């Protein structure tokens, strides 16, 4: 028992360092997913048919393949083939981002489609271009409505990021495994990993909830409230 505690205390800073890498991969992945997902949602709702097909294909591919397989496909496959020298953590971030883009595009599409048509028409009737109506009327509302789905996406990506371990990225999961194989404290270290993941999920979801409240507009997005 004493040994378990001393292993945990000694390795904790090391594990937290891994948490830093995990957070970097998750934040990077979420942001890349946003940059990919938002235009895709707009294209899928408002774009011409070929664009919609492209988005559908992208979403179909990235949602249809397990993250683990995507990691192998890109890190050991495509990036090698193209002779891109990208380290494991960056590769994992890119793959998480590309996959998240597929999921996020559908979060945003759902929000966009939940808005009434009338507001777009009102914007058009004032002489706004479609781009202006989307930028100033549709997206500010759709993004607000997307925050609950986005916080879901965060908690999923956070846990998917543990798979980066298989590429050799020294994030939380990899570091707990390193320490466990050296000290044989498997249970305690797995619990430590659990604890760190719980903490990161809780903190991130709290943060997004705070953001949701901060940008909330009186009476907006409460259509289903009692």
């Amino acid at each position, binding site marked *: 028992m004493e040994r378990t505690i001393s292993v945990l205390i000694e390795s904790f800073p090391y594990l937290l360092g891994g948490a830093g890498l995990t957070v970097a991969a998750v934040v990077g992945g979420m942001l890349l997913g946003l940059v990919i997902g938002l235009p895709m949602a707009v294209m899928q709702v408002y774009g011409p048919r070929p664009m919609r097909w492209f988005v559908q294909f992208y979403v179909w591919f990235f949602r249809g393949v397990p993250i683990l397989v995507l990691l192998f496909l890109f890190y050991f496959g495509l990036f090698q083939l193209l002779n891109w020298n990208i380290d494991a953590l960056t590769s994992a971030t890119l793959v998480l981002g590309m996959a998240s883009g597929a999921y996020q595009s559908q979060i945003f599409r759902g929000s966009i489609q939940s808005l*009434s048509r*009338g*507001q777009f*028409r*009102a*914007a*058009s*009737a*004032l*002489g*706004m*271009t479609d781009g*202006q109506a989307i930028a*100033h*009327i549709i997206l*500010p*509302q759709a993004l*607000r409505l997307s925050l609950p789905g986005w916080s879901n996406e965060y908690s999923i990506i956070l846990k998917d990021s543990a798979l980066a371990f298989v590429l050799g990225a020294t994030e939380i999961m990899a570091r707990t495994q390193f320490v466990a194989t050296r000290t044989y404290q498997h249970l305690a270290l797995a619990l430590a990993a659990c604890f760190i993941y719980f903490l990161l999920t809780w903190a991130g979801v709290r943060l997004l909830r705070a953001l949701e409240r901060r940008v909330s*507009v*009186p*009476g*907006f997005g*409460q259509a289903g409230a009692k």
Partner: protein
Amino acid sequence: MTTPDTNPILTISGLNKTLGGKPILRDVSFSVQPGELKVLIGPSGGGKSTLLQCLNFLHEPDSGVISLDGEAVDYKSRKTLYAYRQKVGMIFQDYNLFDHLTALENVSLALRKVKKLKRSEAETRARQELDRVGLADKASLYPAELSGGQKQRVSIARALAMDPRVILLDEPTAALDPELIGEVLQVIRSLVQSGMTMIMATHQMGFVRTMADEIIFMQDGCIVEHGKPAELLDEQRGSRTLDFCTHLSEFENGAP
């Protein structure tokens, strides 16, 4: 049609529109003089709403020509279309305020983004328009915090801020509780008095009787008849309009 000695602001000729294989507008033609209030009346599904939406190309007409100040609108050109829409305001039955913006931002947004005014100029102008519809004190409220009548007045202020030549109103009081209709009609009445040119679909017959310059009665996508309220609503003449309005008031009074 009326006062042929002046040039019409808006001329509509031979407008046709088919939606989902069903003809909605059939060869609709009329013209609107400056300062005129034209009222569209007729059974629902008769084409009033589609006509108004075609008039600022929210629906593209299948054929026909719409001219503003004698010039046919080339709506296929985006630039012409956006410029035209700035000159033709639209008021919707269900207000269509921008839900994430305050009353002030609702009115000032297009001034900033379309007319490219500075924020301060746009807000000054927006406050004037809100004041004009009696909502100066509601500028910082969001749509969800306003009553239906107030929302519709904000949407009128939003249209007025663009300095339109013509305003189209699609049953602006149809979604309102009876006690809120008066405040919106009052604002529209003051617009008539200030000489604004308007085309309005409405069934508020008291208002139509006193304010309209001409009634256009539409049914099955056609203009069935048109004329001054005094003529069309004259009990001696037995017009289709009068017939329809009689049924309307029976319905409103709860009689079969």
